[in-house]
């Protein structure tokens, strides 16, 4: 089944072939009547009732409003007068074009004319369509309430007896969801051809799987991955979920063109690129034009910078109460959910703002009682003003900490997953702008006054940085001088940092170790911390994947005694052409994959343990995407989690036994099938021999008809001769002497 938007009903899911869909009811409901000329007319209601004498005055007054959205004239306004020489309180207006009429409906409807009167603007055709007799029932009929329908369990996968994880696999035209079975082949849950057009994406807690089609986005979920919701955003290209799975942002490069009578989209969405949807209702909350496309020429008058899609265009606060968007160089607009109104009715003006990031968790700062979300942004040097990094508290919009910086060429903001630290990676150039260096300015958000720690300036530029999830350690990769000649990869160095041990609070960040002469360019922390994978991806010559342990349980080098880390390289594996690396949500497995989106050589994915032991290799033709299904946060309390960790050995004993048992079962099964297959084969051969003998009998040919002897004049070949011994005389020169006689 190809689940596409064309099949709008749920039942189509279960049909093999697409049937003609009966659209007659929909057609009737949303029927579009094209009546020549009438779509330039609007009806304005809610006008004051005036005597005929003052009619012209009112029309003139009204025209001022009407001409704000389009062009019309006194002659084009018709205000009927009744027998009592009074106006009726409404007027017909003709605009120049249908677009202007639409704009009038959009912008003037509900606008107050004066204190007592509010305009009600409708298209003439709409009045005709809905106002016609019989179209609307005279009597009120209470809406029928649909009987309660049991919804599917959207989190059933978490109840797997063996706590296995699921993943989605997109290869060729097919998308499948599988259970990870360690080194055994994955178990299929569903596999559908043409399930998506562009890519698939899990929601952040794993409840939904999103598929992307030219018609919009579809969400799938439940044990059998049935269709849960549809979001008809035409030509959608990018999708983003809010962290709590309540909202969805969709983007398309092409502005949306809403046709009249669209069941979900309204004129509100016309011409927009971005829609924020409420996932539960399936309705758009608000839509926006994307900033990147309307951005004017570059601020500094330089060559216009390349336009890039700003994505995610809307960034969510950790609790989904706010969503913010930046207008580069100008402002940040913060919207409140669920109404999507602008917080404080204005955007926050920040001259030159380049980037911002929300804290990924709600932070309790020391000495701050009221509720807040934190947002970090930076501005570059403008004129004589220094560059600036600041933390803003929302909803108060108060700047809680700011820091000035000089000689800045670029800044990247990295929040630690709990919002404890934010690392500001500052790329600085020397005065001559010839050499580059990087500073790390780490804001300790939870501590009083938000102290900033500066990690010694690194001589080389930092190309990658990653915090340990739920921890205080980080890894960064610096880029040395690139050797001339593009064929050679620039050598990189990988540095591991950890805080000093200092009582309860973490001490200063110190370098643990730097590994030089690597080619690595990507860092992947285990979602549970401690383990980190450093790899070279998207390279054509180097494919190493290093598995590091930051809390190695062995001996610790003397020099690193004060550090809260014991670094150990566990294993290095190679995966030819690796493009992506993904940790499973529990931090047990790592999948490295080579996607056909990047190159077409040896596509497929390999599964490794967290320690780098390769469990299985799955070369897959036209492999595109591998994504683990995320898990929601654990429901266990801190104490319960501690209990689990304490009794880990007992549990693992149990599991080891189970594993062993499973292996035994599997082995027996394999042996059984082999036995069966072999017996079948032997039986087939025997039967075939009998057939052959029968055939020979029937044709009256001798038993050895197929033997070479039948050919006339054949030399006698005796079978009993068996193996022949071939004697070969090999002459070898043992010694060569040259004697000169004379």
């Amino acid at each position, binding site marked *: 089944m190809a689940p596409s938007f064309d099949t709008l009903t749920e039942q189509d899911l279960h049909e093999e072939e697409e049937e003609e869909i009966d659209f007659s009811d929909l057609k009737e409901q949303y029927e579009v009547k094209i009546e020549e000329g009438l779509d330039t007319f609007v009806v304005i209601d809610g006008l004051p009732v005036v005597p005929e004498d003052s009619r012209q005055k009112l029309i003139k007054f009204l025209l001022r409003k009407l001409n704000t959205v389009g062009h019309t004239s006194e002659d084009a306004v018709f205000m009927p007068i009744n027998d009592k020489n009074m106006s009726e309180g409404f007027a017909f207006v003709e605009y120049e074009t249908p677009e202007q009429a639409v704009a009038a409906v959009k912008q003037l409807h509900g606008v107050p004319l004066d204190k007592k009167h509010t305009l009600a603007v409708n298209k003439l055709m709409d009045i005709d369509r809905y106002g016609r007799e019989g179209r609307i029932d005279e009597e009120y009929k209470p809406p029928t309430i649909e009987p309660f329908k049991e919804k599917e369990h959207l989190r059933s996968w978490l109840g797997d007896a063996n706590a296995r994880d699921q993943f989605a696999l997109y290869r060729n035209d097919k998308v499948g969801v599988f259970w990870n079975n360690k080194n055994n082949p994955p178990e299929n849950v569903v596999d559908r051809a043409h399930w998506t057009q562009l890519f698939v994406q899990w929601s952040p807690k794993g409840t939904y799987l999103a598929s992307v089609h030219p018609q919009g986005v579809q969400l799938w979920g439940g044990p059998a991955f049935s269709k849960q919701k549809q979001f008809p955003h035409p030509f959608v290209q990018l999708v983003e979920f809010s962290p709590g799975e309540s909202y969805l942002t969709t983007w398309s490069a092409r502005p949306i063109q809403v046709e009249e009578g669209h069941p979900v989209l309204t004129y509100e969405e016309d011409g927009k690129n971005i829609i924020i949807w409420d996932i539960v209702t399936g309705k758009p909350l608000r839509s926006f034009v994307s900033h990147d496309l309307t951005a004017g020429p570059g601020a500094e008058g330089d060559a216009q910078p390349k336009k890039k899609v700003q994505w995610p265009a809307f960034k969510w606060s950790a609790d989904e109460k706010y969503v913010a968007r930046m207008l580069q160089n100008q402002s940040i607009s913060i919207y409140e959910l669920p109404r999507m109104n602008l917080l404080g009715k204005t955007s926050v003006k920040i001259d030159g703002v380049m980037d911002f990031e929300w804290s990924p968790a709600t932070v309790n700062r020391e000495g701050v009682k009221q509720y807040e979300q934190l947002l970090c942004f930076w501005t570059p040097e403008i004129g004589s003003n220094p560059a600036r990094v600041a933390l803003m508290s929302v909803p108060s919009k108060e700047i809680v900490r700011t820091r000035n910086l000089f000689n800045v060429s670029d800044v990247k903001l990295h929040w630690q997953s709990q919002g404890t630290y934010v690392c500001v990676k500052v790329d600085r150039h020397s005065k001559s702008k010839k050499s580059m260096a990087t500073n790390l300015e780490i804001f300790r958000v939870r501590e009083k006054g938000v102290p900033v720690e500066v990690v010694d300036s690194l001589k080389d530029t930092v190309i990658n940085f990653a915090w340990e999830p739920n921890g205080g350690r980080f890894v960064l990769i610096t880029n040395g001088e690139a050797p001339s000649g593009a064929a050679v990869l620039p050598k990189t160095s990988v540095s591991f940092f950890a805080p000093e041990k200092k009582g309860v609070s973490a001490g200063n960040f110190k370098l643990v170790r730097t590994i030089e002469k690597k080619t690595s360019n990507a860092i992947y922390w285990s979602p549970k911390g401690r383990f980190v994978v450093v790899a070279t991806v998207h390279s054509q010559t180097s494919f190493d994947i290093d598995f590091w342990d930051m809390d190695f349980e062995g001996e610790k080098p003397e020099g690193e005694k004060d550090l809260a880390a014991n670094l150990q390289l566990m294993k290095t594996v190679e995966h*030819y052409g690796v493009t992506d690396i993904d940790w499973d949500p529990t931090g047990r497995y790592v999948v490295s994959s080579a996607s056909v989106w990047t190159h077409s050589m040896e596509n497929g994915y390999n599964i490794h343990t967290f320690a780098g032991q390769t469990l299985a290799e799955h070369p897959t033709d036209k492999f595109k995407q591998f994504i683990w299904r995320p898990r929601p946060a654990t429901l266990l309390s801190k104490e319960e989690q501690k209990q689990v960790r304490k009794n880990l050995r007992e549990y693992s004993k149990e599991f080891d036994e189970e594993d062993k048992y499973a292996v035994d079962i599997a082995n027996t099964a394999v042996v059984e099938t082999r036995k069966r*297959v072999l017996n079948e084969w032997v039986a087939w051969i025997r039967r*075939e021999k009998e*057939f*052959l003998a029968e055939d020979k009998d029937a044709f009256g040919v001798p038993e050895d008809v*197929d033997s*070479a002897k039948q*050919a006339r004049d054949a*030399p006698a070949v005796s079978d009993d001769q068996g193996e022949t011994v071939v004697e*070969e005389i090999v002459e070898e020169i043992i010694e060569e002497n040259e004697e000169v006689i004379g």
Partner: protein
Amino acid sequence: MRPILLSGHERSLNQIKFNRDGDLIFSVAKDKIVCAWWSANGERLGTYTGHQGAIWTVDVSPNTILLATGSADNTVRLWNVKTGECVKVWDFPTAVKRVEFTPDGSRLLAVTEKRMGFLGTIAVLDIAYGEDLTSQADEPSLRITCEESKATVAGWSFMGKYIIAGHEDGSVSQYDGKTGEQLENVQAHEFDHQINDLQFSTDRTYFITASKDKSAKLMSARNLAILKTYVADTPLNSATITPKKDYVILGGGQAAMDVTTTSARQGKFEARFYHKVFEDEIGRVRGHFGPLNTVHVHPNGTAYASGGEDGYVRVHHFDKSYFDFMYEVEREQMRR
């Protein structure tokens, strides 16, 4: 398993054949000459020259008296194995892609290419082993025309009862060996994935096909039932069934035109051994630096030869471990 490297050809190999006794190997390549080798040590016995174009195919009569070759010069030639003389030339309108003797050597089939308005055909020639080998019938005794999809390979079943042909569209058909009537047609491989090789088991009751669709299939000659499927990760050019041990050997690799800047690891230029019954891959033999175009096994199952796009023939005599390898279930069966 140290291979013997036979470097007698200047261009890519097209087919290799052991004779029925297994002491000789015949190889043909795009370089217009046929080579005969001693299989035991790889010494070249001689060449057969005369063809004007690339030679696509070779077969040797079961009694090792006659050798048949088919070439891009639109001829089938018959050679005296012993003397190297060309005893007969049949002209065809198009290139000849495959020749094969019946098990008793009395007939020879030739598969002709579809080109220049001529449809692909399978022609059957009667072969005489008289005093004078040059006295052969001039006209084919039977001609099968492939209307739908041209045949790329063909062979004789047991007793020469059926002609089995593999087609360009991935299907396999069964023709009556006497009348040429099509009895059966099975879409064995993926549609439009050409079948590149078709080789029979020793008793010719079943055969193996190798296709561009990256799989090889073991099929019954009697009813074209697919018995086994061997899945590889690369397009296959050749497949053979080993006597004595229940294995099959597959050869292939990325097509020459697709190999650009890739390294040898990328090309998958290895001979792959699969267990015939269990369909598991059990081993690979590296060595060629181009795709394998042809593999053939010694009739006694003691050696195999592979020919590659790289122009080399590699002859491997199997080690003891090859014969010793056995699945536990097989061993059990043996004991019983």
